[in-house]
Every structure is written in structure tokens, then in C-alpha cells.
């Protein structure tokens, strides 16, 4: 699926920088991304690639005296980056909600889960306590929790990890937001529970037409549920396209390296999985050119002067990448 003609959420030139001892850390270095209504867009990258910084700036959760966030993110005519904290409060939880990883930490340990869902409902809808509770029980049922009347009265520590993540999803979906950011929603779960939770997310997305931004480093998760994929490296999107394009016809050397470091059940048996040499950029200073160049097997002097733009190059229709080298590792003329 390609981006819808009229994107629901349109991100332009998003930069996120944090003041750290020794300078400014560029977490997100200028990103353009469109999210269509009802699609699942996976944002893939290593730790520190800026995928969380990107998603958290959409709800202003990384605002602070040390954060410098610029660019625009338009949702229903509101710029989420420039919006006042007060304006953003009415968006958070209603138009954009987040399902956090590690639900045990993300849920309040001293409140019943039903109360935590009710709170989400009552913050944005005029509902009586009773009505909100009833709706919370319904939401628990909808996310596949058996015996929801009883479970609503449980505290987070009394539930299993999978159930807690379902509660988190119920909170996220409570007000039927247009955009749901799922920040590594399955990281803390067993593999079997992971699959259940992913299927649940996919089903809810189909039922409600919610746009899901799926933050993950797990390509298996991407293959399972994503419609489109954006691969991030050092704060920039280096490749973007449909799930099949990115997974089966990757263009950027980083995407290729990432894919080849994942074991495949249908591939040839290997003694050792190839790893990407070197380590990701984490410091405050970045090379002027392609951020992946220091680790890339095909670095060319054309990679070094400036970061390559994310363009349609040699990929399939709609597929974008940020590598100046063509498929035969020769220089590509940039239009």
C-alpha cells in the first residue's frame, strides 16, 4: 500500500535535538513522512536511531528544556510540533495515543486497570464513572481479555505480561484515536504472546481504521503486520517503501545489512549470521555525509560531502532510498 492521496498525518522536516553534556545530540535529523489513514507504518531501526524520539515528538512527550524540536507534523490541520501544551493535551489520548513497551512500568501500580482505562475515557469524553467503567470492561473484552468484569478490578501486578500489554492497548484505543503509536509493543513479551498481541493490533486496526505507527527493531514484527516500512539510521530515514519492497527488494546498504543479520527459515543455513561492522553513531558530532558511510561496505567518495536525500532511485515504484550508489554499486546521477 502506498501513502493515501490525502495523508492523515504529514511530517515535514522534523528535527529533534537534545542538549547533552558536550553539545547537542541530533536524535532526529530532518524527516519527511506521510501516514495514510488506516495503514500500519513500521519504523525500524537500532536503539538510538531516533525512532522513539520521532514518535514521542508527535505527542510532545519529549518536550522539555533540553529538547529542541523543529519541523511540522500536521494532523487535521493542527501542527503537533508547534501546538501549545494545552492544545496538545486535547490531542493526546484522543487523536493520537501511544501503546508503550513494558506495560508493567507504564501502568500505574496503585490503580485498578479498569480505573486506568476509565481515566483515559473520562479525560476526553463526558462519561459518568459508571458508564466509563462499563466501557472499560467492554474494551478489555475487545482486546481479548477473558473475564473482563473481574480483570477490570485487578491491579497491574496481578495480570500476566500479555494481559498487561492488552490493557495498554485498550487504554490506547479507548477514545478511538486516528493515530496509534505502538512503541515496541511486544518487546517485553514471550514469542507466542507477541504473535497474539500483533494479531490483535492488526485486527483492531482493520476494525477501526486506525493508523498505526509501529516502532520496532524487530523485522519479524514488521513482516507480520506492517503495510509500509521506514528504515531509520542515525536520525534519518534511509529507506522507505511497502513492506514487501523493503523486506524483499531492499535498496539501501543498511537495509540489506540489517536483513542479512536476521536468521531466515527459508534461507541457506549459515554458521554465523553476518553482523554490521562498527557501531551506530551516538555522539553529538556527525560526519557531513551519509551517516552509514563509516560502516558501509561500499563507501564511495560521493557519500562523504552531504547526506544523500531520500528519493526514488532504482527501487520499485514508490520505493525511496537515501543511497547515492546504484544497484550495481556505481554512482547514481541524482536528478
Amino acid at each position: 500500500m502506498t501513502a493515501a492521496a490525502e495523508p492523515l498525518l504529514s511530517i515535514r522536516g522534523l528535527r529533534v535535538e537534545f542538549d547533552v553534556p558536550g553539545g547537542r545530540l541530533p536524535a532526529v535529523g530532518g524527516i519527511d513522512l506521510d501516514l495514510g489513514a488506516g495503514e500500519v507504518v513500521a519504523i525500524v531501526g537500532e536503539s538510538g536511531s531516533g525512532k522513539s524520539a520521532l514518535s514521542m515528538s508527535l505527542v510532545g512527550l519529549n518536550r522539555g528544556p533540553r529538547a529542541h524540536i523543529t519541523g511540522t507534523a500536521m494532523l487535521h490541520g493542527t501542527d503537533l510540533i508547534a501546538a501549545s501544551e494545552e492544545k496538545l493535551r486535547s490531542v493526546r489520548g484522543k487523536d493520537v495515543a501511544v501503546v508503550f513497551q513494558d506495560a508493567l512500568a507504564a501502568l500505574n501500580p496503585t490503580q485498578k486497570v479498569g480505573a486506568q482505562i476509565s481515566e483515559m475515557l473520562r479525560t476526553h469524553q463526558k462519561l459518568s464513572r459508571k458508564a466509563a467503567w462499563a466501557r472499560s470492561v467492554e474494551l478489555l473484552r475487545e482486546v481479548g481479555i477473558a473475564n473482563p468484569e473481574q480483570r477490570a478490578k485487578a491491579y497491574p501486578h496481578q495480570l500476566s505480561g500479555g494481559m498487561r500489554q492488552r490493557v495498554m492497548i485498550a487504554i490506547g484505543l479507548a477514545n478511538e484515536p486516528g493515530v496509534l503509536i505502538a512503541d515496541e509493543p511486544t518487546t517485553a513479551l514471550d514469542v507466542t504472546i507477541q504473535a497474539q498481541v500483533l494479531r490483535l493490533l492488526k485486527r483492531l486496526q482493520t476494525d477501526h481504521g486506525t493508523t498505526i505507527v509501529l516502532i520496532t527493531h524487530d523485522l519479524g514484527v514488521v513482516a507480520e503486520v506492517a503495510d509500509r516500512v521506514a528504515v531509520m539510521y542515525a536520525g534519518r530515514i534511509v529507506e522507505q517503501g511497502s513492506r514487501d519492497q523493503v523486506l524483499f527488494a531492499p535498496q539501501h546498504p543498511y537495509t540489506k545489512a540489517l536483513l542479512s543479520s536476521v536468521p531466515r527459515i527459508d534461507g541457506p543455513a549459515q554458521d554465523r549470521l553476518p553482523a554490521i561492522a562498527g557501531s551506530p553513531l551516538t555522539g553529538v558530532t556527525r560526519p557531513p555525509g551519509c551517516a552509514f558511510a563509516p560502516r558501509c561496505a561500499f563507501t564511495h567518495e560521493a557519500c562523504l560531502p552531504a547526506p544523500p536525500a531520500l528519493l526514488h532511485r532504482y527501487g520499485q515504484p514508490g520505493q525511496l532510498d537515501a543511497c547515492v550508489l546504484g544497484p550495481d554499486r556505481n554512482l547514481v546521477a541524482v536528478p
Partner: protein
Amino acid sequence: MTVTPVAPVAVRPSLRQRLGTPWLIVRRLLAVPVVLFFLAGIVFVAMRLLPGSPATSLAAGGASGDTSAAEITRNQARINEALGLDQSLAHQYGDFLHSLVTFDLGSSFFGGTKVTSLLGGSLPATIELTVAAMLIAVGLGLVTGVIAALRKDTWVDSSIRTAGTIGFSLPWFALGVLAVVVFGVWLGWLPVIGRLPNQLDYKPFTNFVLLDAILQNRPELVWPWIQHLILPATTLALSMAGFITRIVRASVLEVLGDDFVRTARMKGLSGGQILRRHVLRNSSLPIVTVLGLQFGSLLGGSVITETVFSYPGVGNQLVNAILQRDYPVVQGAALAIALLFVLVNVVVDLLYLVLDPRLRKA
């Protein structure tokens, strides 16, 4: 597409789990008499290890200039016999334990008033003083601690922390004397002696002034009572407040960094809502712990503060009784103070269970 229901874990908790919380409470309460028993033993021995005896105080006190040394010694022997102090220590301890289990703490060596009736007058006064001090300290500490946490690393934060450290380091007697001189003597704003003005004709029933004012329908008692309470209670409260400020600040800062606070922000809650619904409750556990422990030092401080303000509480009584070697009163007062401390900490333990559902499993 159908929903895969999550495999139900045991919905019905085991008997032990269901009994868990009440059992925890019972176990906690059962420990109270044990603690008191050991404490009583320690006080009993400590008093008798002190040099001097009630007989010396009594005989010397009654002696006029022409009493001979031999006469004093004879008097002492008579007194010792009358008070039962000529018996062996073991025998005395047996009598003491017997009086404990019958809730009869004996009578004062000086004047023969029953210790229970002495405590009946002084214990409520001390409870009033310490509870008032605790309320002031908690109020002050909570407000300043939360503000300091929310304004972390600003001048507001550092001023509050400095003030807290000063409050925490000031000794009670210095603070008490300062309060007496400034507010009582120089400014004359507040009374500095006792608990109520004599001319008010207060007829104690429960000996809790507020309660009596309600029971006897005497609202005119309340204001003078509060006036008398302000200075000693504040004196007592300041050091505790300084301590609470620090704990609250640290605890609130820690909780503010927790993931569920981020979840609360994600829900679109305002800062005030997040503070009230999510931060305060979760940061209260260390605060409550400190309250229980600090209550002990509050009781210690009340001994000094009551003396400075001539406040008719247990602490004041204890000091006088020790000076006179009035064993039954010392034992009774010490037990009363210990009982207060233990009970407050039982309440603290129970508060844990209320505040943190994770602790409710046995």
C-alpha cells in the same frame, strides 16, 4: 476475525491469599504486647541502675536542718519498706509484671496518685501536641517538597532545600526558647505556658480538649487551646518538616521519572491531575515510612519541648519523675510513650497496605 482469549490464570485466589491481608494485620498487632514487654523490662532495670533512690529523695526532701544523719537513714529504711523497695529485684520485677498485666501501673511514690490517672491526664496532652506537630510537619513538608521537586534546580528548589536543612538541624530546645522569647515575650502574640488558661475552668472528661469541647458543648475552649498549641507544636514540627521536605522531594522526583507518569501525560491529563492522581500516591510510601520513624524522634522532642513550654504532657512528667526517682511513674510514662510509638508504626504498616496494592499479598 475472532479474538483469542488469554488463558485464564486461577481466578479464585487460594485461601492463604484471601486471608493474606487480615492475617498480616493480626500478626502486626500481636507483636505489640511483645515489644512492650521487653521495653518494660529494660525501663525497669535502667531505673534501678541509676544512682540514687526514691527513698533518698523523699527522706532528704522531708528533712529539716536538725534531722540527724542517723534519723535520715532510719527514715530511708522505713520508706524502702513502705514502698516495697527492700524486696529483692526479682520480687520487685514480679510485682511489676503483675501490675502490668492487670493494667494497674501502681502509684506515684510522691503523693500516691495512681500512675494510670496521672497518665490519663498527661497522655492526651502529649498526643494532642505530637499529632498537631505531625500535621504541621506533614503539611509543610509535603507542600515544600512537592514545590521543590517541580521546580528542581531553580532558586526556588535551592531555597527550600536550604530552609529544610536549617529546620532539620535546629535543636528543639533552641527553637523552643527562641519561640518563647520572640512570640511570647517580645511580641506577646501567643501564650507560652501550659495547655489552657487557668481561668477557663476546664473540666477534663476525655482530656482531649477538642473532644471535650464538642462533648461538653464549650466552643470557647477551642481557640485558646489552639493558641497554646501553636508554638510548642511548631517548635516540634520544624525539624520533622525539614526532613519530610527532603524525602518528599526525592520521592516525587523519582516517581515523576516513572513510565506510568509518561502514560498519564499521554492520556492528556494536566499537570495537576497527574500530580494528584498518579504522583502523590506513588511517592507516599517512603514518606509514610519516614513519618512512622520520625514520630519516635517527635516523642523524644516532646520531652524537651514540653519542658520548655511547661506543657502538662507525658514528657514533662517523665523528666520530673526521673529526677525524683519515682519508679512507677517513669515506668508508666515510658510505656505510654512506647505504646504510642508502636501504635503509630502499626498504623504506618497498615497504611502501606492501603497505599500499595502490591504489598497486600501475605
